[in-house]
């Protein structure tokens, strides 16, 4: 696996050797800062080794560009920015914005950006079912959406649509979705996703198969791929961004019969942020006569 990833990485980025220890330690800082995933919203975190290589790849791909993340529980946005800021990798985007409906994720990114002085990284508390009214125009987008096992990729399409809107249907995109030859649904979703991209004026520039694994109790071997999309020349938006409320697109959004009911996940503020939660432990003192 590592050999394969190194081959892929070196094929794409021949000039990209970096200090692997420094990179892993930097990713470790980011992982330490992430809120715990909510599985009911398909928040499933990528494993750290894959995050290192993915961050390097995305930083190179988005070098010198303005990059929008449509959802980012993994915190690849932070990794990309942090690795570049610490000069562990010599390339990276000039601006990174994360659009996510989970306030815990937005706040964790904002806190990390503040403490590490990552001025080019910011967040927008945003639900993908609402129209995307960002005034800022981006050059490229990245999304690792709910993979659409029960909705034939409809949830993937919603996230990609917002990504395309963020780049005004002109910029490139990377979509991370399930890719397992033993699971039929991943192949069906890959087809549906590519069909959607073509209908939207995009084509598949590159597909990097079976690249990442995740912290998944029930499917530790399930992998995902990078689907890299490029807009056709002179591609135009089909219209203004609008709310998505069509029940047929939403009925199986988070799994069969599991439409989205939650607009935002709100963070319960704590005084002991970043430390062990006080309700996790109690102190037992030495006896007086010790």
């Amino acid at each position, binding site marked *: 696996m590592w050999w394969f990833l190194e081959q892929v990485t070196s094929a794409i980025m021949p000039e990209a050797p970096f200090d692997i220890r420094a990179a892993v330690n930097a990713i470790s800082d980011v992982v330490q800062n992430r809120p715990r995933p909510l599985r009911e919203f398909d928040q499933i975190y990528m494993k750290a080794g894959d995050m290192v290589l993915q961050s390097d790849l995305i930083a190179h791909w988005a070098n010198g560009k303005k990059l929008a993340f449509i959802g980012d529980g993994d915190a690849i946005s932070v990794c990309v920015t942090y690795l570049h800021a610490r000069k562990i990798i010599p390339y990276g985007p000039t601006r990174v914005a994360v659009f996510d409906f989970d306030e815990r994720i937005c706040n964790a990114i904002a806190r990390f950006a503040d403490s590490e002085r990552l001025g080019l990284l910011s967040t927008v508390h945003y639900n993908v079912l609402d129209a995307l009214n960002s005034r800022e125009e981006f050059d490229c987008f990245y999304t690792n959406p709910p993979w659409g096992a029960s909705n034939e990729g409809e949830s993937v399409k919603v996230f990609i649509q917002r990504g395309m809107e963020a780049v005004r249907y002109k910029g490139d995109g990377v979509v991370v979705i399930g890719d397992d030859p033993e699971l039929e649904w991943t192949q069906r979703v890959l087809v549906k996703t590519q069909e959607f991209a073509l209908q939207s004026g995009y084509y598949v520039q590159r597909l990097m198969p079976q690249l990442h694994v995740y912290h998944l109790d029930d499917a530790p071997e399930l992998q995902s791929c990078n689907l890299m999309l490029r807009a056709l020349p002179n591609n135009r938006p089909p219209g203004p961004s609008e709310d998505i409320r069509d029940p047929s697109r939403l009925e199986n959004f988070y799994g*069969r019969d599991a439409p989205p009911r939650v607009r935002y996940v709100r963070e319960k503020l704590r005084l002991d942020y970043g430390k062990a939660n006080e309700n996790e432990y109690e102190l037992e003192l030495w006896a007086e006569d010790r």
Partner: protein
Amino acid sequence: MTEILHPGAGVLFMKVGTHADEPLDEIIKRKRREIQEAGYALWGYGGGTCHPLTAVQPFVRDFERRGSTVYLLMQPMVSRHLAVTERATQFSADGIVWQPIPKPINVIGSRYAFAINELKNEEFDLSLATTRVAAGISRGKPGDQYVKGRVDKACLEISDPVDPNAHDQAAVHIGFVARFVEPFAVIVK
């Protein structure tokens, strides 16, 4: 048994044993008492598989819509589960609206629970090789390849006819069977 194990049938398979220091026979007695007193029992479970909202509820509902009953099949096993012994006080079928857990029902040391009744002793073998995962991101995977390691429960569909005379290495011995009742599975706290 044949009523349960026919091609196209849905079953939720789960390994059961000592939980939170309580031996299995004591748990069974307690759950039957809960069914008698409350009309149903909540059988606690945890882990990342079989999420109540995104896996179990849609899985059972889908089979019920087709007029088929989904059974909970339990494989007794030796275990030394030493989880916390904290009793949950509330349950929710959607993660949003919470209700108090009725007094006769005790869910101990778990995050999720199946809603069941008719908890019976039934002895038969289930060939996991004749099943496929029927819910969640591993949907379509053969049951015997899915239930391994830390995965000890699964929403399955019987995909092939069962040959009771075949020697099957992927067979597991079922000791208890229960029926699901609405809302099939809940989150507890």
